[in-house]
């Protein structure tokens, strides 16, 4: 593999880094080592649920916890509330009903290396995503117990990560916020289990926020402070970073950005995407042999309605068969039987539509943050003679 891609788009499914080892993880693809950013290899997406040991990792600051003492660790609900409350992990497990949801966690910058012109940032291929069954406590219950005062506007989340920068800078703390009235808060879970196991430290032990349908930037890892604010959060991670153009698909041009004419808003729900996982194109297929083409699809806008495959360069589309339904925010597996007729290079394309009526387009996306890529995916196959 090359050591980097560019200035053109990354042509590979994953990013190009080497396999590396990190605690509690199988070998994953290295983006950066300090802070830790690791990408999940394509082969782990053959199932609806991504194993914890292969789940991608993305931290912002270098001060990542190596140890948490649950004797002293507490989840604090504080700020503009009548009754500040602190919970131990045992409190969260025992005092509240356990809620579970299957939900996709996808990095805002997943597939950033596809954009042209290329933009700086984590040069992810397609593997900055994963699906897990998350179990924990409803955020609304924790908030309700603390009784936010009238005049409260936002709710801010902070985890255990910190950086070398001075206080007040984004390089010091990583903080994310929602409007208190945002309906997504009704679906949020403070999760202490991931696929029925404790969270790996690199994925946010002991608890992380789960925001179904939203990009992972809001899914605070090692969540420790839930803060009710009486003003709008203007910290770097809300005001400057993770912002998208307020345009269809978040699309814009370098020229418009330079001219300063683009209105930017915080990133939010994940657009519909589908991926072709196997076969991965690394082996020839004999002409005339039926093969099972498999993949996954998801949408942050309420469930995948259909997945279609094209074998003729996007001219016609055929329905793929769905695998088991684990809920509207989960990966949905799909399968398609394809019998290549003649030897040569064949390209398959896949597109998904969600229940809100969005269908993946074939047009690329560009914005300065490198977010929201959801163009139709293609896979080349070499078909060989069978006699």
């Amino acid at each position, binding site marked *: 593999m090359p050591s980097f891609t560019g200035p053109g788009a990354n042509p590979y499914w994953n990013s190009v880094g080497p396999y590396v080892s990190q605690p509690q993880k199988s070998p994953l693809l290295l983006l950066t080592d*300090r802070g830790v950013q690791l990408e999940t290899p394509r082969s782990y997406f053959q199932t609806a649920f991504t194993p914890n040991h292969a789940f991608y990792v993305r931290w912002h600051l*270098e001060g990542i916890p*190596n140890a948490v003492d*649950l004797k002293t660790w507490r989840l604090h609900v504080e700020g503009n509330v009548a009754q500040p409350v602190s919970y131990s992990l045992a409190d969260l497990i025992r005092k509240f009903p356990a809620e579970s949801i299957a939900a996709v966690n996808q990095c805002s910058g997943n597939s950033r290396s596809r954009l042209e012109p290329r933009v*700086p940032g984590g040069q992810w291929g397609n593997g900055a995503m994963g699906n897990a069954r998350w179990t924990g406590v409803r955020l609304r219950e924790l908030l309700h117990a603390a009784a936010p005062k009238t005049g409260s506007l936002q709710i801010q989340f902070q985890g255990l990560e910190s950086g070398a920068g001075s206080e007040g800078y984004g390089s010091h703390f990583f903080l994310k916020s929602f409007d208190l009235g945002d309906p997504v808060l009704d679906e949020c879970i403070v999760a202490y289990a991931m696929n029925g196991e404790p969270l790996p430290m690199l994925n946010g032990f002991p608890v992380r926020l789960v925001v179904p349908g939203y990009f992972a930037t809001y899914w605070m890892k090692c969540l420790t402070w839930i803060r009710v604010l009486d003003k709008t959060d203007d910290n770097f991670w809300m005001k400057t970073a993770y912002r998208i153009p307020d345009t269809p698909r978040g699309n814009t041009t370098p020229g418009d950005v330079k001219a300063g004419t683009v209105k930017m808003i915080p990133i939010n729900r994940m657009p519909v995407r589908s991926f072709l996982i196997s076969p991965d194109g690394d082996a020839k297929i004999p002409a005339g042999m039926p093969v099972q083409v498999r993949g996954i699809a998801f949408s942050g806008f309420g469930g995948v309605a259909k997945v279609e495959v094209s074998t003729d360069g996007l001219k016609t589309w055929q329905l793929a068969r769905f695998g088991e339904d684990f809920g509207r925010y989960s990966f949905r597996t799909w399968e398609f039987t394809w019998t290549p007729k003649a030897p040569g290079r064949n390209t398959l394309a896949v597109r998904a539509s969600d229940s809100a009526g969005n269908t993946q387009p074939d047009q690329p996306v560009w914005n300065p943050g490198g977010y929201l890529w959801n163009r139709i995916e293609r896979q080349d196959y070499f078909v060989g003679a069978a006699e």
Partner: protein
Amino acid sequence: MQLVKRYFALLFGGSLVIVLAAGLLFAQVKRGNYAPATLGQLQQPPPATLTDDSVYQVSAYQLYPAELEEGEGRAETESFCSLCHGTRYITMQPPLPAAAWEAEVTKMRKTLGAPISDESAALIVKYLQAHYTPDTRKQ
């Protein structure tokens, strides 16, 4: 007699076809192609040593530092950028235009508060532009 001759001709011809076919078949199945590989680049981690107390701990996160290109300004780039993050943040990037590298260094200083003097920043920008743009970057 005629019949016997034909029988031998057929037998001979048939055997020839079988021998040729076997030869072709043999030529089409390659066997035993091995090549030397590098062992131990990625070590299997030992099992964790755990205790039954309330502390949940993982071993040290592994550093895989990137080697930056040789050149004037490398030492400043390495030491200042490493205050907050590893140098892989540089080598991971695609080749970026000169203006983009200047913007990155400005963002680190002004927006994220990196304590880098104007003089050092100028040196770092010059170094990044000399080695990490579409025109200057080497695989």
